[in-house]
Protein backbone atom coordinates (compact mmCIF):
# COMPACT_ATOMS: atom_id res chain seq x y z
CA UNK A 1 0.00 0.00 0.00
CA UNK A 2 1.33 3.46 -0.82
CA UNK A 3 1.85 6.17 1.76
CA UNK A 4 0.09 9.33 0.54
CA UNK A 5 1.63 11.42 3.32
CA UNK A 6 5.14 10.55 2.14
CA UNK A 7 4.15 11.06 -1.50
CA UNK A 8 2.77 14.53 -0.72
CA UNK A 9 6.27 15.69 0.20
CA UNK A 10 7.17 15.44 -3.49
CA UNK A 11 4.40 17.83 -4.58
CA UNK A 12 5.32 21.46 -3.93
CA UNK A 13 1.89 22.79 -4.88
CA UNK A 14 0.21 20.81 -2.10
CA UNK A 15 1.88 23.10 0.43
CA UNK A 16 -0.20 26.02 -0.88
CA UNK A 17 -3.06 27.62 0.94
CA UNK A 18 -6.10 28.74 -1.00
CA UNK A 19 -8.60 31.11 0.54
CA UNK A 20 -6.73 30.72 3.84
CA UNK A 21 -7.20 26.93 3.85
CA UNK A 22 -4.70 24.19 2.97
CA UNK A 23 -5.19 23.19 -0.66
CA UNK A 24 -7.15 19.99 -1.14
CA UNK A 25 -6.95 19.02 -4.76
CA UNK A 26 -9.81 16.75 -5.86
CA UNK A 27 -9.87 17.58 -9.57
CA UNK A 28 -7.47 14.88 -10.66
CA UNK A 29 -9.64 13.57 -13.47
CA UNK A 30 -9.12 16.96 -15.15
CA UNK A 31 -5.38 17.11 -14.53
CA UNK A 32 -2.99 15.92 -11.86
CA UNK A 33 -0.39 17.85 -9.90
CA UNK A 34 3.29 17.38 -10.69
CA UNK A 35 5.95 15.92 -8.38
CA UNK A 36 9.31 17.68 -8.05
CA UNK A 37 10.90 14.78 -9.97
CA UNK A 38 8.90 15.77 -13.07
CA UNK A 39 9.49 19.49 -12.54
CA UNK A 40 13.23 18.88 -12.10
CA UNK A 41 13.42 16.68 -15.21
CA UNK A 42 11.89 19.47 -17.29
CA UNK A 43 14.19 22.06 -15.75
CA UNK A 44 17.22 19.86 -16.29
CA UNK A 45 16.28 19.28 -19.92
CA UNK A 46 16.15 22.99 -20.67
CA UNK A 47 19.26 23.75 -18.61
CA UNK A 48 21.40 20.88 -19.88
CA UNK A 49 20.12 19.13 -23.00
CA UNK A 50 17.85 21.41 -25.03
CA UNK A 51 18.19 21.00 -28.81
CA UNK A 52 16.01 19.84 -31.66
CA UNK A 53 15.87 16.10 -32.20
CA UNK A 54 17.11 13.92 -35.08
CA UNK A 55 19.19 14.67 -38.16
CA UNK A 56 21.79 16.77 -36.43
CA UNK A 57 25.28 15.62 -35.67
CA UNK A 58 26.02 17.81 -32.68
CA UNK A 59 26.17 16.52 -29.14
CA UNK A 60 23.18 18.35 -27.73
CA UNK A 61 20.87 17.11 -30.47
CA UNK A 62 22.05 13.56 -29.88
CA UNK A 63 21.32 13.91 -26.18
CA UNK A 64 17.87 15.36 -26.86
CA UNK A 65 17.15 12.63 -29.45
CA UNK A 66 18.13 9.92 -26.98
CA UNK A 67 15.91 11.38 -24.29
CA UNK A 68 13.00 11.72 -26.68
CA UNK A 69 13.36 8.20 -28.07
CA UNK A 70 13.77 6.82 -24.56
CA UNK A 71 10.45 8.49 -23.64
CA UNK A 72 8.74 6.44 -26.36
CA UNK A 73 10.41 3.29 -25.03
CA UNK A 74 9.29 4.02 -21.47
CA UNK A 75 5.70 4.58 -22.56
CA UNK A 76 5.80 1.35 -24.55
CA UNK A 77 7.03 -0.61 -21.53
CA UNK A 78 4.48 1.05 -19.25
CA UNK A 79 1.56 -0.30 -21.29
CA UNK A 80 3.36 -3.45 -22.46
CA UNK A 81 3.50 -2.45 -26.13
CA UNK A 82 5.98 -4.14 -28.46
CA UNK A 83 8.35 -1.19 -28.67
CA UNK A 84 8.59 2.50 -29.43
CA UNK A 85 7.42 1.93 -33.02
CA UNK A 86 3.94 1.46 -31.58
CA UNK A 87 3.97 4.74 -29.61
CA UNK A 88 3.12 8.01 -31.31
CA UNK A 89 3.47 11.16 -29.25
CA UNK A 90 0.61 13.62 -29.58
CA UNK A 91 -0.71 16.55 -27.54
CA UNK A 92 -3.11 14.36 -25.60
CA UNK A 93 -5.99 11.93 -25.80
CA UNK A 94 -8.10 14.19 -28.00
CA UNK A 95 -5.39 14.51 -30.62
CA UNK A 96 -4.71 10.77 -30.48
CA UNK A 97 -8.37 9.97 -31.24
CA UNK A 98 -8.45 12.56 -34.02
CA UNK A 99 -5.31 10.98 -35.45
CA UNK A 100 -7.06 7.61 -35.71
CA UNK A 101 -10.20 9.24 -37.13
CA UNK A 102 -8.42 11.21 -39.83
CA UNK A 103 -5.41 8.99 -40.59
CA UNK A 104 -7.25 5.67 -40.54
CA UNK A 105 -10.96 6.59 -40.67
CA UNK A 106 -10.87 9.08 -43.51
CA UNK A 107 -9.45 6.47 -45.90
CA UNK A 108 -11.10 3.35 -44.56
CA UNK A 109 -14.66 4.22 -43.53
CA UNK A 110 -17.20 4.01 -46.34
CA UNK A 111 -20.84 5.08 -46.56
CA UNK A 112 -22.15 1.60 -45.71
CA UNK A 113 -19.90 1.23 -42.64
CA UNK A 114 -20.69 1.79 -38.99
CA UNK A 115 -18.69 3.16 -36.08
CA UNK A 116 -19.75 2.15 -32.58
CA UNK A 117 -19.29 4.51 -29.66
CA UNK A 118 -20.91 4.43 -26.24
CA UNK A 119 -23.21 6.98 -24.66
CA UNK A 120 -20.76 7.54 -21.83
CA UNK A 121 -17.90 8.74 -24.01
CA UNK A 122 -16.07 11.98 -23.43
CA UNK A 123 -16.86 14.42 -26.25
CA UNK A 124 -13.37 13.76 -27.63
CA UNK A 125 -14.48 10.24 -28.58
CA UNK A 126 -17.80 11.37 -30.07
CA UNK A 127 -17.15 14.60 -31.95
CA UNK A 128 -14.31 13.37 -34.24
CA UNK A 129 -16.51 10.47 -35.44
CA UNK A 130 -19.59 12.65 -35.93
CA UNK A 131 -17.52 15.21 -37.87
CA UNK A 132 -15.92 12.52 -40.02
CA UNK A 133 -19.25 10.87 -40.73
CA UNK A 134 -20.34 14.13 -42.38
CA UNK A 135 -17.49 13.69 -44.85
CA UNK A 136 -17.59 9.92 -45.39
CA UNK A 137 -21.28 9.27 -44.78
CA UNK A 138 -20.91 6.30 -42.43
CA UNK A 139 -23.23 5.82 -39.48
CA UNK A 140 -22.22 6.46 -35.88
CA UNK A 141 -24.12 4.09 -33.61
CA UNK A 142 -24.39 4.56 -29.86
CA UNK A 143 -24.20 1.72 -27.35
CA UNK A 144 -26.49 2.13 -24.35
CA UNK A 145 -25.38 2.69 -20.79
CA UNK A 146 -27.20 1.15 -17.82
CA UNK A 147 -28.90 3.35 -15.23
CA UNK A 148 -25.93 2.96 -12.88
CA UNK A 149 -23.49 4.18 -15.54
CA UNK A 150 -22.04 0.79 -16.45
CA UNK A 151 -21.85 -0.27 -20.08
CA UNK A 152 -24.84 -2.21 -21.35
CA UNK A 153 -23.04 -5.17 -22.90
CA UNK A 154 -26.28 -6.51 -24.34
CA UNK A 155 -26.77 -3.25 -26.22
CA UNK A 156 -23.19 -3.56 -27.50
CA UNK A 157 -23.80 -7.09 -28.72
CA UNK A 158 -27.01 -6.01 -30.41
CA UNK A 159 -25.34 -3.04 -32.07
CA UNK A 160 -22.24 -4.72 -33.45
CA UNK A 161 -22.37 -6.30 -36.89
CA UNK A 162 -20.17 -6.97 -39.88
CA UNK A 163 -20.81 -3.36 -40.87
CA UNK A 164 -18.94 -2.23 -37.76
CA UNK A 165 -15.44 -1.16 -38.69
CA UNK A 166 -14.29 0.29 -35.39
CA UNK A 167 -15.51 0.27 -31.80
CA UNK A 168 -14.50 3.39 -29.87
CA UNK A 169 -14.94 3.28 -26.12
CA UNK A 170 -13.50 4.53 -22.93
CA UNK A 171 -11.76 2.28 -20.44
CA UNK A 172 -12.77 4.33 -17.39
CA UNK A 173 -15.55 6.92 -17.40
CA UNK A 174 -14.40 10.43 -16.55
CA UNK A 175 -17.84 11.06 -15.00
CA UNK A 176 -18.60 7.94 -12.96
CA UNK A 177 -15.18 6.28 -12.75
CA UNK A 178 -16.75 3.02 -13.96
CA UNK A 179 -14.25 0.56 -15.41
CA UNK A 180 -15.41 -1.02 -18.66
CA UNK A 181 -14.41 -4.55 -19.59
CA UNK A 182 -12.66 -3.55 -22.80
CA UNK A 183 -11.06 -6.99 -23.10
CA UNK A 184 -14.48 -8.58 -23.61
CA UNK A 185 -15.54 -5.82 -25.98
CA UNK A 186 -12.33 -6.23 -28.00
CA UNK A 187 -12.83 -9.99 -28.26
CA UNK A 188 -16.34 -9.57 -29.66
CA UNK A 189 -15.32 -6.68 -31.92
CA UNK A 190 -12.50 -8.71 -33.44
CA UNK A 191 -14.88 -11.60 -34.15
CA UNK A 192 -16.74 -9.15 -36.39
CA UNK A 193 -13.50 -7.87 -37.94
CA UNK A 194 -13.76 -4.47 -36.28
CA UNK A 195 -10.87 -2.52 -34.78
CA UNK A 196 -10.99 -1.30 -31.19
CA UNK A 197 -9.94 2.17 -30.06
CA UNK A 198 -9.78 2.66 -26.31
CA UNK A 199 -9.80 6.06 -24.62
CA UNK A 200 -7.40 5.41 -21.77
CA UNK A 201 -7.29 8.96 -20.42
CA UNK A 202 -8.74 7.85 -17.08
CA UNK A 203 -7.35 4.32 -16.95
CA UNK A 204 -3.65 4.50 -17.83
CA UNK A 205 -2.94 6.90 -14.92
CA UNK A 206 -4.92 4.88 -12.39
CA UNK A 207 -4.60 1.14 -12.98
CA UNK A 208 -2.29 -1.35 -14.69
CA UNK A 209 -3.00 -1.33 -18.43
CA UNK A 210 -1.57 -4.04 -20.68
CA UNK A 211 -2.40 -3.55 -24.34
CA UNK A 212 -1.44 -7.13 -25.19
CA UNK A 213 -3.65 -8.61 -22.53
CA UNK A 214 -6.55 -6.37 -23.54
CA UNK A 215 -5.81 -7.09 -27.22
CA UNK A 216 -6.88 -3.63 -28.35
CA UNK A 217 -5.81 -1.95 -31.57
CA UNK A 218 -5.42 1.63 -30.37
CA UNK A 219 -5.05 3.22 -26.95
CA UNK A 220 -5.11 6.98 -26.43
CA UNK A 221 -4.01 8.75 -23.26
CA UNK A 222 -2.66 12.02 -21.85
CA UNK A 223 0.50 12.72 -19.89
CA UNK A 224 -0.92 15.52 -17.76
CA UNK A 225 -3.46 13.21 -16.13
CA UNK A 226 -0.63 10.97 -14.89
CA UNK A 227 1.74 13.48 -13.24
CA UNK A 228 3.34 14.56 -16.54
CA UNK A 229 3.26 17.94 -18.23
CA UNK A 230 0.41 19.23 -20.40
CA UNK A 231 0.76 19.03 -24.18
CA UNK A 232 2.10 15.48 -24.33
CA UNK A 233 0.15 12.27 -24.72
CA UNK A 234 0.40 9.04 -26.63
CA UNK A 235 -1.39 6.95 -29.16
CA UNK A 236 -0.56 3.27 -29.02
CA UNK A 237 -1.33 1.37 -32.20
CA UNK A 238 -0.61 -2.20 -33.21
CA UNK A 239 2.45 -2.05 -35.43
CA UNK A 240 0.89 -3.85 -38.39
CA UNK A 241 -2.03 -1.39 -38.39
CA UNK A 242 0.16 1.72 -38.03
CA UNK A 243 2.33 0.51 -40.91
CA UNK A 244 -0.72 0.45 -43.18
CA UNK A 245 -2.02 3.88 -42.22
CA UNK A 246 -1.04 7.05 -44.05
CA UNK A 247 0.12 9.98 -41.91
CA UNK A 248 -2.27 12.57 -40.52
CA UNK A 249 0.10 15.55 -40.59
CA UNK A 250 2.75 16.23 -43.22
CA UNK A 251 5.99 18.11 -42.74
CA UNK A 252 9.51 17.66 -41.47
CA UNK A 253 10.56 14.68 -39.35
CA UNK A 254 7.86 12.39 -40.76
CA UNK A 255 9.52 11.96 -44.17
CA UNK A 256 12.71 10.28 -45.30
CA UNK A 257 13.04 12.01 -48.68
CA UNK A 258 11.28 14.71 -50.65
CA UNK A 259 12.60 14.68 -54.22
CA UNK A 260 11.67 17.06 -57.00
CA UNK A 261 11.07 15.54 -60.44
CA UNK A 262 12.11 18.05 -63.07
CA UNK A 263 9.91 16.44 -65.74
CA UNK A 264 6.62 16.09 -63.86
CA UNK A 265 7.53 19.14 -61.72
CA UNK A 266 6.13 17.37 -58.68
CA UNK A 267 7.73 16.25 -55.46
CA UNK A 268 7.64 12.62 -54.47
CA UNK A 269 7.97 11.69 -50.84
CA UNK A 270 9.04 8.64 -48.95
CA UNK A 271 7.84 8.29 -45.40
CA UNK A 272 9.93 7.88 -42.30
CA UNK A 273 9.78 4.78 -40.10
CA UNK A 274 7.37 4.29 -37.23
CA UNK A 275 6.62 6.13 -35.06
CA UNK A 276 8.16 9.23 -36.67
CA UNK A 277 5.97 9.12 -39.77
CA UNK A 278 3.12 10.30 -37.53
CA UNK A 279 5.11 12.99 -35.73
CA UNK A 280 5.44 15.85 -38.20
CA UNK A 281 7.39 18.93 -37.18
CA UNK A 282 9.44 19.57 -34.08
CA UNK A 283 7.86 17.45 -31.38
CA UNK A 284 7.23 18.24 -27.71
CA UNK A 285 10.64 16.95 -26.64
CA UNK A 286 10.51 18.37 -23.16
CA UNK A 287 7.01 16.94 -22.73
CA UNK A 288 8.43 13.51 -23.50
CA UNK A 289 11.16 14.01 -20.91
CA UNK A 290 8.58 15.07 -18.30
CA UNK A 291 6.38 12.11 -19.16
CA UNK A 292 9.34 9.73 -18.71
CA UNK A 293 9.88 11.12 -15.20
CA UNK A 294 6.16 10.77 -14.44
CA UNK A 295 6.13 7.15 -15.58
CA UNK A 296 9.20 6.37 -13.49
CA UNK A 297 7.46 7.91 -10.47
CA UNK A 298 4.33 5.81 -11.00
CA UNK A 299 6.31 2.63 -11.66
CA UNK A 300 8.25 3.12 -8.44
CA UNK A 301 4.92 3.26 -6.57
CA UNK A 302 3.43 0.40 -8.58
CA UNK A 303 0.19 0.70 -10.52
CA UNK A 304 -1.48 -2.00 -8.41
CA UNK A 305 -0.81 0.18 -5.38
CA UNK A 306 -2.21 3.25 -7.16
CA UNK A 307 -5.39 1.33 -7.95
CA UNK A 308 -5.70 -0.06 -4.41
CA UNK A 309 -5.19 3.38 -2.82
CA UNK A 310 -7.86 4.99 -4.99
CA UNK A 311 -10.29 2.15 -4.42
CA UNK A 312 -9.79 2.42 -0.69
CA UNK A 313 -10.25 6.20 -0.74
CA UNK A 314 -13.30 5.98 -3.00
CA UNK A 315 -14.97 3.39 -0.77
CA UNK A 316 -14.28 5.50 2.32
CA UNK A 317 -15.53 8.71 0.68
CA UNK A 318 -18.74 7.16 -0.65
CA UNK A 319 -19.38 5.60 2.74
CA UNK A 320 -18.95 9.00 4.46
CA UNK A 321 -21.03 10.81 1.83
CA UNK A 322 -23.91 8.42 2.35
CA UNK A 323 -24.25 9.81 5.88
CA UNK A 324 -25.44 13.06 4.29
CA UNK A 325 -29.13 13.53 3.78
CA UNK A 326 -29.18 15.88 0.79
CA UNK A 327 -26.21 14.47 -1.09
CA UNK A 328 -26.75 12.04 -3.92
CA UNK A 329 -23.95 10.01 -5.47
CA UNK A 330 -24.46 9.19 -9.14
CA UNK A 331 -23.29 5.94 -10.68
CA UNK A 332 -22.36 2.70 -8.95
CA UNK A 333 -21.63 2.61 -5.22
CA UNK A 334 -19.27 -0.35 -5.52
CA UNK A 335 -15.72 1.03 -5.39
CA UNK A 336 -14.22 -2.19 -6.76
CA UNK A 337 -15.68 -1.53 -10.24
CA UNK A 338 -14.57 2.10 -10.26
CA UNK A 339 -11.53 4.30 -10.30
CA UNK A 340 -11.31 7.25 -7.90
CA UNK A 341 -14.06 9.43 -9.35
CA UNK A 342 -17.28 10.33 -7.52
CA UNK A 343 -19.97 12.37 -9.26
CA UNK A 344 -22.59 13.83 -6.96
CA UNK A 345 -25.28 16.42 -6.43
CA UNK A 346 -26.55 18.36 -3.43
CA UNK A 347 -30.33 18.67 -3.30
CA UNK A 348 -31.43 21.54 -5.55
CA UNK A 349 -28.04 23.29 -5.64
CA UNK A 350 -26.34 23.66 -9.00
CA UNK A 351 -23.04 21.83 -9.30
CA UNK A 352 -21.30 25.18 -9.77
CA UNK A 353 -22.68 26.47 -6.47
CA UNK A 354 -21.29 23.34 -4.86
CA UNK A 355 -17.87 23.78 -6.48
CA UNK A 356 -17.70 27.48 -5.58
CA UNK A 357 -18.61 26.67 -1.99
CA UNK A 358 -15.84 24.07 -1.79
CA UNK A 359 -13.44 26.58 -3.32
CA UNK A 360 -14.10 28.91 -0.37
CA UNK A 361 -12.62 26.19 1.83
CA UNK A 362 -9.58 25.49 -0.36
CA UNK A 363 -11.09 22.35 -1.90
CA UNK A 364 -10.86 22.08 -5.68
CA UNK A 365 -13.55 19.98 -7.36
CA UNK A 366 -15.05 20.19 -10.84
CA UNK A 367 -18.61 20.98 -11.89
CA UNK A 368 -20.54 20.81 -15.16
CA UNK A 369 -20.88 18.19 -17.86
CA UNK A 370 -17.22 17.11 -17.70
CA UNK A 371 -17.36 16.97 -21.52
CA UNK A 372 -19.85 14.09 -21.33
CA UNK A 373 -23.18 15.73 -22.07
CA UNK A 374 -24.93 12.63 -23.51
CA UNK A 375 -24.27 10.73 -20.26
CA UNK A 376 -25.72 13.61 -18.22
CA UNK A 377 -28.77 13.59 -20.47
CA UNK A 378 -29.08 9.85 -19.89
CA UNK A 379 -28.95 10.48 -16.11
CA UNK A 380 -31.38 13.43 -16.55
CA UNK A 381 -28.87 15.74 -14.86
CA UNK A 382 -28.32 19.41 -15.63
CA UNK A 383 -24.72 18.95 -14.52
CA UNK A 384 -22.81 17.21 -11.74
CA UNK A 385 -20.17 17.96 -9.15
CA UNK A 386 -17.19 15.64 -9.31
CA UNK A 387 -14.49 14.76 -6.81
CA UNK A 388 -11.60 12.74 -8.20
CA UNK A 389 -8.60 11.33 -6.39
CA UNK A 390 -4.98 10.46 -6.92
CA UNK A 391 -1.97 9.10 -5.10
CA UNK A 392 -1.49 12.15 -2.84
CA UNK A 393 -5.04 12.36 -1.48
CA UNK A 394 -5.62 11.24 2.09
CA UNK A 395 -8.46 10.17 4.38
CA UNK A 396 -7.80 13.31 6.41
CA UNK A 397 -8.60 15.38 3.32
CA UNK A 398 -11.76 13.35 2.76
CA UNK A 399 -12.87 14.01 6.34
CA UNK A 400 -12.54 17.76 5.73
CA UNK A 401 -14.28 17.40 2.37
CA UNK A 402 -17.24 15.70 4.08
CA UNK A 403 -17.36 18.31 6.86
CA UNK A 404 -17.56 21.10 4.27
CA UNK A 405 -20.16 19.14 2.32
CA UNK A 406 -22.28 19.00 5.48
CA UNK A 407 -22.16 22.81 5.66
CA UNK A 408 -22.99 23.14 1.98
CA UNK A 409 -26.04 20.88 2.19
CA UNK A 410 -27.41 22.87 5.10
CA UNK A 411 -26.96 26.32 3.59
Amino acid at each position, binding site marked *: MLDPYKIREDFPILKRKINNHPLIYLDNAATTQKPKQVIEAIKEFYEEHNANVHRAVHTLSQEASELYENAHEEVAKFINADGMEEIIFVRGTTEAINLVAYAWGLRNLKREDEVLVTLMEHHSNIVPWELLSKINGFQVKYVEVNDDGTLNYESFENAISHKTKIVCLLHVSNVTGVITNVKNVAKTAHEYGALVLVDGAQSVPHLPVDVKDLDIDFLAFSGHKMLGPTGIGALYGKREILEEIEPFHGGGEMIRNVTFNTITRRCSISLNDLPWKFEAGTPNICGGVGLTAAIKYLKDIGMDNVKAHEENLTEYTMHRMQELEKVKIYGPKDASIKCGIIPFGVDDLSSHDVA*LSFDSYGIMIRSGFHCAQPLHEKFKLKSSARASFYIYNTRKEIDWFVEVLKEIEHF
Partner: protein
Amino acid sequence: MNTVEDYVARIEETCGEERDFVVILKYDLKNQAIAKILKKAKVKKSISRIVFELTFKNVSFRLYGTGKAIFRNLKDKEELQKVLADLLL
Protein backbone atom coordinates in the same frame (compact mmCIF):
# COMPACT_ATOMS: atom_id res chain seq x y z
CA MET B 1 -15.08 57.02 -13.54
CA ASN B 2 -14.99 53.30 -12.70
CA THR B 3 -16.01 50.60 -15.15
CA VAL B 4 -17.15 47.01 -14.56
CA GLU B 5 -13.75 45.87 -15.85
CA ASP B 6 -12.08 47.75 -12.99
CA TYR B 7 -13.63 45.27 -10.59
CA VAL B 8 -14.02 42.11 -12.64
CA ALA B 9 -11.07 39.86 -13.52
CA ARG B 10 -12.91 37.16 -15.44
CA ILE B 11 -16.35 36.00 -16.42
CA GLU B 12 -16.85 32.29 -17.03
CA GLU B 13 -19.96 30.79 -18.58
CA THR B 14 -20.52 27.54 -16.72
CA CYS B 15 -20.56 24.18 -18.45
CA GLY B 16 -23.89 22.42 -17.92
CA GLU B 17 -27.52 22.80 -18.78
CA GLU B 18 -27.86 25.70 -16.31
CA ARG B 19 -25.65 28.11 -18.32
CA ASP B 20 -24.91 30.24 -15.28
CA PHE B 21 -22.23 32.91 -15.18
CA VAL B 22 -19.39 32.91 -12.69
CA VAL B 23 -17.88 36.34 -12.07
CA ILE B 24 -14.43 36.53 -10.53
CA LEU B 25 -13.67 39.87 -8.91
CA LYS B 26 -10.19 41.38 -9.04
CA TYR B 27 -8.34 40.32 -5.92
CA ASP B 28 -7.14 43.81 -4.96
CA LEU B 29 -10.60 45.35 -5.20
CA LYS B 30 -12.72 42.41 -4.10
CA ASN B 31 -13.54 43.74 -0.65
CA GLN B 32 -14.55 47.07 -2.13
CA ALA B 33 -16.66 45.34 -4.78
CA ILE B 34 -18.29 43.00 -2.27
CA ALA B 35 -19.21 45.99 -0.08
CA LYS B 36 -20.80 47.75 -3.06
CA ILE B 37 -22.78 44.64 -4.01
CA LEU B 38 -24.00 44.04 -0.47
CA LYS B 39 -25.13 47.64 -0.23
CA LYS B 40 -27.39 47.30 -3.28
CA ALA B 41 -28.55 43.68 -3.30
CA LYS B 42 -30.96 42.09 -0.86
CA VAL B 43 -29.44 39.41 1.34
CA LYS B 44 -31.71 36.34 1.57
CA LYS B 45 -29.29 34.38 3.74
CA SER B 46 -25.61 34.18 4.55
CA ILE B 47 -23.01 32.12 6.38
CA SER B 48 -20.58 34.31 8.35
CA ARG B 49 -19.39 36.34 5.32
CA ILE B 50 -18.33 33.16 3.50
CA VAL B 51 -21.35 33.05 1.21
CA PHE B 52 -24.36 35.29 0.59
CA GLU B 53 -27.55 34.33 -1.21
CA LEU B 54 -28.70 37.57 -2.85
CA THR B 55 -31.33 39.05 -5.14
CA PHE B 56 -31.12 42.21 -7.17
CA LYS B 57 -33.81 43.38 -9.62
CA ASN B 58 -35.25 39.84 -9.89
CA VAL B 59 -31.83 38.36 -10.49
CA SER B 60 -30.74 35.79 -7.95
CA PHE B 61 -27.09 35.14 -7.32
CA ARG B 62 -24.59 33.91 -4.79
CA LEU B 63 -21.62 35.92 -3.70
CA TYR B 64 -18.64 34.31 -2.02
CA GLY B 65 -16.21 35.98 0.35
CA THR B 66 -13.46 34.71 -1.96
CA GLY B 67 -14.55 37.29 -4.53
CA LYS B 68 -16.52 34.99 -6.78
CA ALA B 69 -20.20 35.19 -7.64
CA ILE B 70 -22.55 32.96 -9.58
CA PHE B 71 -25.47 34.56 -11.45
CA ARG B 72 -28.39 32.37 -12.48
CA ASN B 73 -30.98 32.44 -15.22
CA LEU B 74 -29.62 35.39 -17.15
CA LYS B 75 -30.38 35.68 -20.83
CA ASP B 76 -26.82 36.38 -21.94
CA LYS B 77 -23.54 38.05 -21.10
CA GLU B 78 -24.94 41.44 -22.08
CA GLU B 79 -27.61 41.19 -19.39
CA LEU B 80 -24.94 40.17 -16.92
CA GLN B 81 -22.86 43.23 -17.82
CA LYS B 82 -25.87 45.46 -17.15
CA VAL B 83 -26.50 43.84 -13.77
CA LEU B 84 -22.84 44.14 -12.85
CA ALA B 85 -22.79 47.79 -13.87
CA ASP B 86 -25.83 48.47 -11.69
CA LEU B 87 -24.25 46.66 -8.77
CA LEU B 88 -20.71 47.95 -9.00
CA LEU B 89 -20.86 51.45 -10.43
